[in-house]
């Protein structure tokens, strides 16, 4: 049941990331998606993968995205 | 007995060691790829007779095949690894003088890793391992396409990266389905189980993998990235991408279709796709004024012909396809390398600016001309033998479809002849000298030209030994039972 709620949140977050005009916001929401994926990996009895996803997918990818956005621009133009 | 895993491990190790050599002396870095590829060439030539006699199966880690990754070094494997090592060696000699700007140490590392990835793809016997090496090949080509850091290169690189990533995503989805359906990743083991489950599931899995691999092989309609990527990379990299990378993509497709799935019922469709790719490539090449874009579109056309030859699926057809791969690797590498120095001298990629090059750079122009003639298929060069085999195979196979398609393929060859002769005419018979003084390309570039020209002529005049290897290679693709038994003894 928890898994279902998390999955719904994850898919909504992915759609929000697609719709947001603020790229930094989109990256933060994408991080949420990564984190929920990591929790789902844990539910599926894959602790190694959960750790990798949390440390690489959620933390480092976000850092790389944020640096790239700081070097470019924050808002998607119309 | 030398273990063929060295063909992959030595280039990887040397590439990792380049920064350390760079600490000793910056001048040392550029000789490392030459050393690595020379080693690979010697080893793969040494392995050819052994692999022809009996396919070499080595496991990694010491377990028996379905439980660990194994390498399958049959005739196909040694054939491809010899081509990769040969073209890689010649291009790395060429690059000694050609690559001057940018972070050159990084260029040589990426170059060597690209070739190591290609070696891994053609030797491995495990589908996920194939995917990993395929990613090595793809990611190093993304980085190398953008190596010059100009606008064209960056645009082409990001375009290639996005389309390539979608492609590899599809391949990985297909691999996930294969694992879910059969619970194994070893190619021979999958091939043994493949008929046991519903055909619809197999078909979709095959379609996903073929589509994904088709992006790298630049099969229509997934070829939008190719002209940009191949024309804006440094010329030495264009030679490798056209001469090796797309052929490796075709190899992977052939391995999946013939050996793993044994799916001979979709080959008519693949043949059609091949001919469409051929015609689109040749027609687009005819319209180009930029010489590198012209060569890039011509690669698309050649890949179409190779795919068509494989889709004939008889012994002659596959032999013709492999022969055409050999011819295309040598000729297209020669064309791109020769064009690279002509562009370097004139500072322009327009075909019209090459006027009178036949007098100013006679050896380079001669190399370009021979490469063009061989690609068009004029005797006595290698292209004649390979195209002749393909036509023969299609006619023997018969049937309305293949006869119509081979007529279209010959029409494509005529177009190809038209645009190559136009360039040759510009090189020799137009312009009155111009302002440039006569100056040849440096020795490091002339040596690869010489070797490639000699090989093209030699293979064209005396195709016997090559055909002997290709014959065994074709039967490796056709007889999948022998492949399965060879791995799972």
């Amino acid at each position: 049941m928890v898994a279902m709620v998390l999955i719904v949140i994850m898919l909504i977050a992915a759609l929000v990331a697609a719709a947001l005009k603020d790229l930094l916001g989109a990256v933060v929401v994408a991080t949420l998606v990564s984190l929920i994926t990591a929790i789902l990996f844990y539910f599926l009895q894959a602790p190694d993968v959960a750790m990798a996803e949390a440390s690489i997918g959620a933390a480092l990818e976000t850092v790389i995205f944020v640096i790239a956005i700081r070097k470019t621009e924050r808002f998607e133009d119309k | 007995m030398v273990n063929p895993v060295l063909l992959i491990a030595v280039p990887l190790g040397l590439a990792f060691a380049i920064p350390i050599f760079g600490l000793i002396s910056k001048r040392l870095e550029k000789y490392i790829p030459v050393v690595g590829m020379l080693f690979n060439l010697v080893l793969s030539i040494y392995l050819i007779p052994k692999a022809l006699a009996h396919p070499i199966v080595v496991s990694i880690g010491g377990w028996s095949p379905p439980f660990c990754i194994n390498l399958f070094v049959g005739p196909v494997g040694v054939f491809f690894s010899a081509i990769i090592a040969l073209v890689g060696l010649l291009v790395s000699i060429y690059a000694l003088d050609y690559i001057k700007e940018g972070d050159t140490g990084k260029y040589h590392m990426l170059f060597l890793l690209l070739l190591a990835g290609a070696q891994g793809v053609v030797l491995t016997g495990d589908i996920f391992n194939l995917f990993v090496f395929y990613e090595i090949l793809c990611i190093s080509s993304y980085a190398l396409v953008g190596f010059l850091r100009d606008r064209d290169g960056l645009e082409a690189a990001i375009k290639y990266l996005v389309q390539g990533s979608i492609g590899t995503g599809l391949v990985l989805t297909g691999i996930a389905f294969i694992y879910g359906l059969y619970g194994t990743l070893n190619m021979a083991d999958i091939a043994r189980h493949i008929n046991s489950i519903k055909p619809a599931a197999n078909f979709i899995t095959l379609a996903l993998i073929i589509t994904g691999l088709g992006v790298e092989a630049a099969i229509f309609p997934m070829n939008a990235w190719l002209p940009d990527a191949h024309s804006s990379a440094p010329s030495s990299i264009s030679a490798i991408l056209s001469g090796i990378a797309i052929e490796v993509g075709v190899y992977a497709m052939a391995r999946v279709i013939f050996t793993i799935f044994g799916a001979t019922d979709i080959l008519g469709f693949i043949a059609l796709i091949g001919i469409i790719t051929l015609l689109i490539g040749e027609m687009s090449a005819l319209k180009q004024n930029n010489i590198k874009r012209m060569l890039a579109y011509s690669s698309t056309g050649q890949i179409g012909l190779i795919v068509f030859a494989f889709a004939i699926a008889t012994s002659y057809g596959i032999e013709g396809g492999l022969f055409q791969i050999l011819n295309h690797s040598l000729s297209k590498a020669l064309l791109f390398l020769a064009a690279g120095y002509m562009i370097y001298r004139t500072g322009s990629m327009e075909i019209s600016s090459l006027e009178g090059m036949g007098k100013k750079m006679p050896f380079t122009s001669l190399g370009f001309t021979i490469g063009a003639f061989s690609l068009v298929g004029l005797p006595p060069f290698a292209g004649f033998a390979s195209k002749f085999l393909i036509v023969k195979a299609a006619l023997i196979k018969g049937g309305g479809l293949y006869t119509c398609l081979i007529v279209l393929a010959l029409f494509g060859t005529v177009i190809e002849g038209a645009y190559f002769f136009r360039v040759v005419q510009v090189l020799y018979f137009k312009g009155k000298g111009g302002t440039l003084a006569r100056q040849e390309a440096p020795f490091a570039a002339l040596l690869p030209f010489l070797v490639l020209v000699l090989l093209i002529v030699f293979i064209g005049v005396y195709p016997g030994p090559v055909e002997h290897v290709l014959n065994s290679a074709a039967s490796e693709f056709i007889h999948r039972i022998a492949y399965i038994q060879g791995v799972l003894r």
Partner: protein
Amino acid sequence: MNFLYANTYYIAAFGLIFIGLYIVMAKRNLVKVIIGLSFVDSGINLLLISIGYIKGGTAPIFSRPDISPLKMVDPVPQALVLTAIVIGVAVLALALSLVVRLYQEYGTLDIRKIRGLKW
């Protein structure tokens, strides 16, 4: 409803893959496109892990002596996903470096305003 309940994880995985592919195909901002690629990667990883899952299975680690090997979930997809995650971050870093350089050249991330990027 029963179908949904039985295949929740597959739906999550394919939902993520499709949202990612939609972003790549329909959005015009390069950073957005790369966010889409990372969604596709996560979705495929989730698919692989769900394929390897066995109901009531334990994690494939002999952390206590009483764990029976026959109750473990499949370890191979987990090993594959570890590889796939690292490949994903590698592609992403390379892509973002290209994006940063393109921004320096053109001053925009919109693929309509960058000459050669029409796909």
